[in-house]
């Protein structure tokens, strides 16, 4: 009996030691390094340039930051034929976002396991890359803390921040967006649900912009207990063989100038520019 307990205890200790500690140093695997070097050489670049980029990813990994988003971006940049200097500048920027995200996730009282932490840091850094600020994330954290309730989880905070990034991309109020996401976090929405909710708000941005929907009403619906499946019902019940309401690449949208020009009355005064917020996207 004692022997069995001892073996069990040893097994538990061994597992604990084998599991990577939160924020443990990471490095780019050798196979990944070889693949990136091969890719840059195939594209006419120099192996040393790939090595320099990988070294920067490894430096970030040594601080306990996830290296996968960095190597993915290096690979994307090389594949698209961008100059190493440009890729490097982007890697430095992403590393900064990862550091900020890592600090915020570490600061939460519920540190998750290594895998969960890495996913949360990566998602939160992605939200920063999309324009969410540290102050806004702190505001989500503050508002999502119900009196006497549990604090927001790391993946919840990351999902709420990413959801807010969509609301900001739709050029809706960041303050009200943060309130919506905080309410969702308080209401027990999962991280992915909050990301989906933000994306859905962005998809319906015209409804919000033109007053057919409001972020305040949405927040109140969540506070009354509406669940993600209710809020996202239209999307979730959509036939899979139909695409989600597609967006057109803003860069390829036909400009008004492409339309046939009509002669302008000579005595007509110039009209003022339309404000940015009313431009149809």
């Amino acid at each position: 009996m004692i022997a069995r307990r001892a073996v069990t205890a040893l097994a538990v200790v061994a597992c604990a030691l084998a599991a990577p500690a939160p924020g443990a140093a990471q490095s780019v695997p050798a196979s990944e390094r070889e693949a990136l070097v091969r890719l840059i050489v195939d594209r006419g670049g120099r192996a040393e340039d790939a090595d320099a980029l990988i070294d920067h990813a490894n430096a970030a990994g040594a601080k306990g930051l996830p290296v996968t988003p960095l190597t993915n971006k290096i690979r994307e940049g090389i594949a698209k034929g961008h100059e190493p200097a440009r890729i490097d500048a982007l890697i430095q920027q992403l590393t900064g976002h990862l550091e900020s995200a890592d600090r915020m996730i570490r600061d939460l009282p519920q540190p998750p396991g290594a895998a969960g932490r890495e996913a949360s840091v990566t998602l939160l850094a992605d939200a920063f890359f999309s324009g969410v600020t540290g102050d806004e994330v702190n505001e989500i954290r503050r508002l999502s803390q119900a009196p006497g309730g549990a604090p927001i989880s790391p993946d919840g905070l990351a999902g709420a921040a990413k959801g807010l990034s969509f609301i900001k991309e739709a050029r809706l109020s960041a303050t009200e967006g943060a309130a919506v996401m905080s309410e969702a976090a308080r209401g027990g929405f999962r991280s992915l649900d909050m990301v989906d909710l933000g994306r859905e708000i962005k998809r319906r941005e015209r409804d919000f912009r033109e007053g057919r929907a409001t972020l305040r009403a949405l927040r109140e619906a969540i506070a009354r207990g509406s669940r993600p499946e209710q809020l996202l019902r239209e999307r979730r019940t959509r036939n899979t063989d139909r695409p989600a309401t597609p967006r057109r690449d803003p860069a390829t949208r036909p400009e008004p100038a492409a339309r046939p020009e009509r002669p302008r009355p000579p005595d007509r005064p110039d009209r003022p520019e339309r404000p940015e917020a009313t431009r149809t996207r």
Partner: protein
Amino acid sequence: MRLRVSIALMAAACASWSCATATGPTPPVVTPAGVRFVFEHGDARSVALAGSFNQWSISSHPMSRAGSSGAWTAVVALPPGEHLFMYVVDGARWISPPLAEDYSDDGFGARNGIVVVRSNDR
């Protein structure tokens, strides 16, 4: 004779115009077999699909020409999640999808298309 040539040229122009505009740009669609990507580029010799799901490889997911309309298609089984993608024409020209569920800045001055596969989509 000149009139006949003009009529023939007009007919050919109309035919190609109707082909090009009848279908129009198509966003990716989730099907039981996978996500169906359709891209129109009549002048391309080859088109590939590159994205976060294939490490931005320009060779692992070639698209097939569908008839003579200039449409290229590929069906790719993707796991649930958010996937970034672009089209690569003739192995070198990276083109942002004309239509997608959403877009994100790639950090290099272009926009990746986004396709989201939800767990209840499959």
